[in-house]
C-alpha cells in the first residue's frame, strides 16, 4: 500500500476571537503510517492540540479553512457528519490529556467502554432511549454483550478485578487506571489510528512509562498508527519513530526521531533541546528559550521563529520559508539550514540529548 494511513496536507485551522483571527494551525503537513508512532512536539500554543482535533474534525469552535486530511483515502475535511461519526467510532480513536476530565464523572467506567463497543458494533442508528437506558427501549442483550467485551478490554489493559471495577465510577479509579480505562475506550473499536493528545502529561513518571510502553506494544502487536502529541521531548524520544516539530502552527522540522533529536537542523529544535534538563551540567541553571511563543493572531507571513532566532536574517522575515529535505525523510523549514554545529559551550562536551523517562537510571 503506497498511501499512508493518514496524510495531513497544508492544514490551516483558524479561530475567530475578538482580537482577530487566530491561525492556530498554519499550513502543517505530515503523514502517519500503520505501525508507526509519530510525535508532534511543540510548546503550549504551538497548535498541537488543534492539529489533533482538526484531524477528527472536532476543531469546533475553530474552522479548517484550507488543506486536506486524508484518512484511508477519505478526505475528512469535506466528509459529512455521519461519515465522520462512523470513522470516529471505528477507525480513529482519541485519547486526551487529563483522564480525570476525559471520563464522564456520572457514568460507570464499564458503561463508557461498553458504549464505545456498541457504537462499533451497530451499523443501525444509535437510539437515544436505548443509550439512556430507558427500560423498555434498552436492548438488553446487546448491552450485556458490550459490557462483557468492556470487561475483556479492561482486563487487556491490566485493570485489576475488571468484573467489579466495571461498575465503578471514574473518581474511584487512580490516575493511571483512568488513563488505562480511556485507552480501553479508544481500543474498543479496534481502530487503525490512535491520536493521543498529551496522554501522559497529567500522570506521574511511573504511570507515564507504563502508558507509553502500552503505545509501543499496540504499535508492534496491532500495527496501529499512533499520533502522539506532547510538549515533552523525553516522551517523544522514548516512544516515537518519527517526530514533527511544530511552532506557530507550522512544521519547523520533521524526520526520524534519532536524527531530529540528535542532529537538529532547525534553530528552534536546537533551542528546545538545549532547554532540556538532561543537557545541563550539574549545578548549571536550566536554560529557557528567550522570548515567548509568537502571537498567533493574524498568522505569519514569514518564519514564526524569526523573532527569537539567533540566526535570523532579513530573508527569514520576507515570506514563507520553503521546506527542504536534508536526507531521507528529514525535512526542515529554515533558510539557514543546515546549521553549523552548535557553538560549543565550555560546560558541555556531549551532543545535546533529550530527556528520557525510561532510561533515567542510566544518567
Amino acid at each position, binding site marked *: 500500500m503506497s498511501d499512508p494511513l493518514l496524510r495531513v496536507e497544508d492544514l490551516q485551522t483558524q479561530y475567530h476571537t475578538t482580537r482577530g483571527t487566530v491561525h492556530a494551525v498554519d499550513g502543517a503537513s505530515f503523514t502517519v503510517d500503520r505501525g508507526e508512532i509519530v510525535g508532534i512536539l511543540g510548546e503550549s500554543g504551538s497548535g498541537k492540540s488543534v492539529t489533533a482535533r482538526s484531524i477528527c474534525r472536532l476543531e469546533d469552535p475553530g474552522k479548517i479553512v484550507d488543506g486536506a486530511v486524508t484518512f484511508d483515502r477519505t478526505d475528512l475535511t469535506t466528509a459529512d457528519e455521519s461519515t465522520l461519526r462512523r470513522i470516529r467510532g471505528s477507525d480513529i480513536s482519541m485519547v486526551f490529556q487529563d483522564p480525570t476530565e476525559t471520563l464522564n464523572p*456520572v457514568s460507570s467506567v464499564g458503561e463508557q467502554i461498553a458504549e464505545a463497543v456498541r457504537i462499533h458494533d451497530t451499523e443501525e442508528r444509535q437510539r437515544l432511549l436505548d443509550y439512556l437506558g430507558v427500560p423498555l427501549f434498552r436492548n438488553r442483550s446487546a448491552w450485556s454483550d458490550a459490557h462483557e467485551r468492556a470487561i475483556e478490554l479492561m482486563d487487556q489493559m491490566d485493570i485489576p478485578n475488571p468484573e467489579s471495577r466495571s461498575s465503578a465510577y471514574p473518581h474511584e479509579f487512580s490516575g493511571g487506571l483512568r488513563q488505562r480505562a480511556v485507552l480501553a475506550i479508544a481500543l474498543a473499536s479496534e481502530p487503525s489510528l490512535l491520536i493521543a493528545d498529551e496522554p501522559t502529561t497529567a500522570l506521574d513518571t511511573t504511570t507515564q512509562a507504563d502508558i507509553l510502553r502500552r503505545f509501543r506494544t499496540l504499535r508492534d502487536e496491532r500495527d496501529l498508527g499512533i499520533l502522539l502529541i506532547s510538549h515533552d521531548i523525553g516522551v517523544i524520544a522514548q516512544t516515537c519513530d518519527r517526530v514533527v516539530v511544530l511552532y506557530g502552527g507550522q512544521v519547523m522540522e520533521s524526520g526520524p526521531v534519532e536524527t531530529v533529536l540528535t542532529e537538529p537542523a532547525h534553530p528552534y529544535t536546537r533551542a528546545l533541546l538545549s532547554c532540556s534538563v538532561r543537557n545541563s551540567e550539574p549545578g548549571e541553571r536550566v536554560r529557557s528559550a528567550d522570548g515567548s511563543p509568537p502571537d498567533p493572531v493574524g498568522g505569519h507571513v514569514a518564519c514564526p521563529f524569526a523573532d527569537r532566532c539567533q540566526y535570523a536574517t532579513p530573508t527569514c522575515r520576507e515570506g514563507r520559508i520553503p521546506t527542504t529535505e536534508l536526507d531521507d525523510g528529514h525535512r526542515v523549514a529554515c533558510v539557514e539550514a543546515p546549521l553549523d554545529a552548535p557553538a560549543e559551550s565550555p560546560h558541555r562536551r556531549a551532543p545535546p540529548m533529550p530527556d528520557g523517562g525510561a532510561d533515567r537510571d542510566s544518567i
Partner: protein
Amino acid sequence: MNGWKLARRVATMLVVLFGVSVLTYGLIFVTPGDPARTILTQQMGGQTPSQEAVEQFRVAKGLDDPFPVQYARWVENAVQGDLGQSYYSDQAVTAMIATRLPNTIALGVASMLVAVAIAVPAGIASAVEPGSQTDYAAQFGALVGVSMPNFWLGYLLIIVCSLWLDLFPVAGAGGLEYLVLPALTLGSGMAAVIARLVRTAMLDVLDDAYIRTARSKGLRERIVVYKHALRNALVPVVTIIGLQLSYVLNGAVVVEVVFQRPGLGTLLVDAIFARDYPVVQGVTLLIGVIFVVTNFAVDLTYSRLDPRIDFGGEPT
C-alpha cells in the same frame, strides 16, 4: 450514603421545623389586633363585644395562657395531627386543609411539569447553539416569562383561552380542563428561571473534556447532549426546582384567587383577612413542612445524580 450523615441531616431538618413552628405560632402575638375582639366584633355584626364575652372567648380558646404554654399545647396537638379549630366555623383545621390540599398539590405538580417540559428542552436548545436564533428566541421568552406577573398572565389566559376561544373553563376546580390555565400561568414563570439555569449549566458542561471524548467515540450528537451532558448539568437544575417550590406555594395564593380555585392559597388569604389564626398557623406550618421535606428529598437525589457527591451535597 451513611447512616450517621442521614441522622445528622434529619436532626437539622427537625431544628428547622422547630424554628418554623415557633415563628408561625409567634406571628400572632406580634401582629396588631386582638383576635378575640376582632372575631367577636364580626360575629356580633360590628358591635363592640362586652369585656366578659372577650374574656370568655380567650379562656375558651386558651388565649389567656402565657405564650410558652399555648405554644407547647399547640405543638403537642399538632404532632398528634390536631391543628385546632377555626375560630369561625369550629371546623377542624386539618379537615379544612384536607379538602383544599389536593387541589393545591395538583396545581403545584402540574405547574412543575409544565415548567420542566418547557424549560429543559428550551434551555438545551439554547445551549447547543449559543447565539443562534433559537437561543435568542428562548432567552427572550424566558425574559418575558420572568417579567410577567402571575395575576396578569392569568387574566390574559382567561380572556384569550376561555372567553375568546372558549377552550377551557374560566374558573373553578374539577377535572383536568380546570387545571390547564392555572398550571400554565404558574408554570411559565418557573419555566423561565429553570430554562436560563439549564442553558448556563449545559453551556458549562458542553465545554468539558468528557463531552469531547463522547464525540470522539462517534456518538450521535443527540446522545452526547442528552446522555452525557444533561445528566451532569442536572444538579444545579434540581436544586433550583426544589427551591422553586416556594414560588409554587406563593404563586398558588395569587393563581388560586385569580382562577377561583379552592386551595391552600385561597384558604390562607381568607384566614389572614379574617384573623382566623388557627387556620393561618396550620396552613403556614404545612407549607413550611412541605418546603423543608422537599428540599431534603432534593438533597437525597444529588448522590443519585452524581456519584461523586456523598449524601447531603458533600463531595467524597
